[in-house]
């Protein structure tokens, strides 16, 4: 069991090392390719291509294919192989993908029929595969030849989930190396529906980077944006296609603190009459964006951030349109066709151009291709001021409550720990006087206020003076006698502690004291 586990681990570790190269070059070895081998066109072409690919630091697998694909070490090995009866592009592609290639290059004359046939081969199966989800990207290099033999075609294909960066690097590498050596140009044929048409801004208060005006929450937002569509195709033009608006949820995205009341977006006119490769439409389109009122999200985090973090945000809205392009309305631009396209096999042979290149757009597209056009637009939105005032009010309330709590606790503690005092008063001669401590701590003798009890201290009132014990005030204890001089007569006060927290009540307390 242990041995089995070890074997499994070793196999898993070693698996990547055993995996085949990520790039493969498939060279057509069918009978129709004979003249190209004879004149060393294939050698020159494959050398250029392999140099470009190996310059990317990747190992490259080389195959020869006709009815079936066969791995070869070098071009010399391929040249030793007998010519095949027909060209099976789709089967060759399958083989390379099965061997683990992400990026597949194919050099072919694009004729699938047996050699000698004057009719074009049925490459429909191959193109069906190229259209399918199994293949993510397709670029075609038509290769003009000297008069006397038809042009060749080089395909660069990326399988689904393959290394897209490697694909782009190899494409750029070959394109730059081939320029000046080969008469060719890159024709990106897949994807046709993504990253192929963009938006050019004519007049707008908002654009993908910033917003020229600041919008307030609580106020309706309606913008008319004038745009043109801009093609990113190099050689393909679009004609007579309708535009649809993609309905989206009314939202600026989950990171935004604001949201629109609605998201009504319309565009007019609704057709693209002509969009040349790399061009902008002549027509200016008006996009009507009606967002209703902008609202602040009513959660604590949003209220906090709107008050304390930022006063505004750049809220991004995604505008999405779909240009529905019927198959027949994808066209290669005339200049490209003039350079590389031959209408018949004979013409291809006579001119060195590639036969039926104009069919590529229809072969590579669906009945209707939905070209996605998506662009962000930034709305600078100012947050309302009410969250700030809410938080300030909350803080003020909290501070008041804390202060109230502290004062309350302090008083409570004072009441609990402080003794209540009662007092007996008499003259020096021993004549008893009416004495009491009222609920406010005033020490009353014969209704005269002669002092007060503050925090267990006796403090004489104005006009009164402590005679015994000497001092400005006296710390009280149970049974302490204090002699006070009031109006030139001496009064002896005897303080008695009461342990009850309740304020002292005496009959005299109800009588208002006479202030000295």
């Amino acid at each position, binding site marked *: 069991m242990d041995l089995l586990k070890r074997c499994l681990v070793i196999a898993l570790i070693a698996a990547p090392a055993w995996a085949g190269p990520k790039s493969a070059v498939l060279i057509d070895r069918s009978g129709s390719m004979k003249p190209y081998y004879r004149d060393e066109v294939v050698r020159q072409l494959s050398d250029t291509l392999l140099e470009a690919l190996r310059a990317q630091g990747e190992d490259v697998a080389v195959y020869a294919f006709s009815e079936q694909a066969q791995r070869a070490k070098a071009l010399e090995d391929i040249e030793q192989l007998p010519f095949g009866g027909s060209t099976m592009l789709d089967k060759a592609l399958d083989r390379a993908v099965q061997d683990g290639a992400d990026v597949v290059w194919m050099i072919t004359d694009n004729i699938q029929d047996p050699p000698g046939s004057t009719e074009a081969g049925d490459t429909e199966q191959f193109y069906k595969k190229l259209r399918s989800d199994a293949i993510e990207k397709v670029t075609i290099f038509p290769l003009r030849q000297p008069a006397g033999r038809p042009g060749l075609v080089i395909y660069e294909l990326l399988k689904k989930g393959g290394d897209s960066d490697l694909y782009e690097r190899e494409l750029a590498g070959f394109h730059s190396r081939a320029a000046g050596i080969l008469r060719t140009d890159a024709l990106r044929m897949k994807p046709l529906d993504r990253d192929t048409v963009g938006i050019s801004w004519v007049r707008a208060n908002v654009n993908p980077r910033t917003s020229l005006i600041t919008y307030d929450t609580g106020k309706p937002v309606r913008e008319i944006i004038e745009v043109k569509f801009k093609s990113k195709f190099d050689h393909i033009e679009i004609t007579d296609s309708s535009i649809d608006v993609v309905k989206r949820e009314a939202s600026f995205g989950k990171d935004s603190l604001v949201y629109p009341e609605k998201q009504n977006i319309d565009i007019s006119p609704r057709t693209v009459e002509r969009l040349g490769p790399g061009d902008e439409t002549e027509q200016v389109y008006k996009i009507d964006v009606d967002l209703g009122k902008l609202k602040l999200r009513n959660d604590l985090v949003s209220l906090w*951030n*709107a*008050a*304390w*973090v*930022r*006063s*505004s*945000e750049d809220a991004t809205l995604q505008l999405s349109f779909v240009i529905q392009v019927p198959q027949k309305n994808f066209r290669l631009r005339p200049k490209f066709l003039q350079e590389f396209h031959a209408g018949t096999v004979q013409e291809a042979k006579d001119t060195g151009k590639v036969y039926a290149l104009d069919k590529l757009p229809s072969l590579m597209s669906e009945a209707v291709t939905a070209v996605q056009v998506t662009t962000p637009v930034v709305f600078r939105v100012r*947050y309302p*001021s009410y*969250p*700030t005032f809410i*938080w*300030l009010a909350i803080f003020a309330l909290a501070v008041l409550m804390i202060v109230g709590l502290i004062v309350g606790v302090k008083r409570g503690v004072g009441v609990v720990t402080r003794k209540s005092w009662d007092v007996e008063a008499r003259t020096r001669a021993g004549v008893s006087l009416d004495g009491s401590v009222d609920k406010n701590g005033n020490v009353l003798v014969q209704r005269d206020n002669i002092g007060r009890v503050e925090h267990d201290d006796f403090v004489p009132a104005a006009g009164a003076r402590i005679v015994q014990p000497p001092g400005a005030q006296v710390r009280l204890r149970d049974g302490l006698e204090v002699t006070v001089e009031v109006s030139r007569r001496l009064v002896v006060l005897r303080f008695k502690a009461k342990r009850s927290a309740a304020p002292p009540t005496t009959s005299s307390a109800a009588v208002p004291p006479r202030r000295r």
Partner: protein
Amino acid sequence: MPAQQGVKDAKPLIIAVFTVFCLANIFLLVISLLIAFKNSKFQPIPEDVGLGIRMLIFLVGAGLSWALGRWLYMRMVEGQIKVPEAATAALVLVFYLLLTFAGLAFLGGFSWIWQTVFLVVLVLMTLLALSRVIGMRFAVFVLVICLLAGVTLFILLS
């Protein structure tokens, strides 16, 4: 004699505080004028900072202004300056301080309008009330110096 000494002690302090905060207000006014008319990007506080932070700056500033104003008032009273004059002068200084903190907290493209209005009112209050404590000559001198500094700063930065 000690009372006379006290009067002499309070005046320089009042003049110093008045000069510093008058200059600060002029400086903030120049910045807001530059933002409004010269498209300046200089902002002492980032433009999109939360209103709460601005309010906090203003409220803390208001507290500091009150404390400083009260302290100055006590110095003036201790310096044998008459209570009504000391109170009015302290109030004028408090408003200078308040305007400084308000200018700092709410500086923007349109703040030059209210800053100018309040500053004009404060200048009038300085000439009518503060000058009784620090003297008309000192008051006018400081105001002229501050205004000249503001004009120079505006020319240099625009």
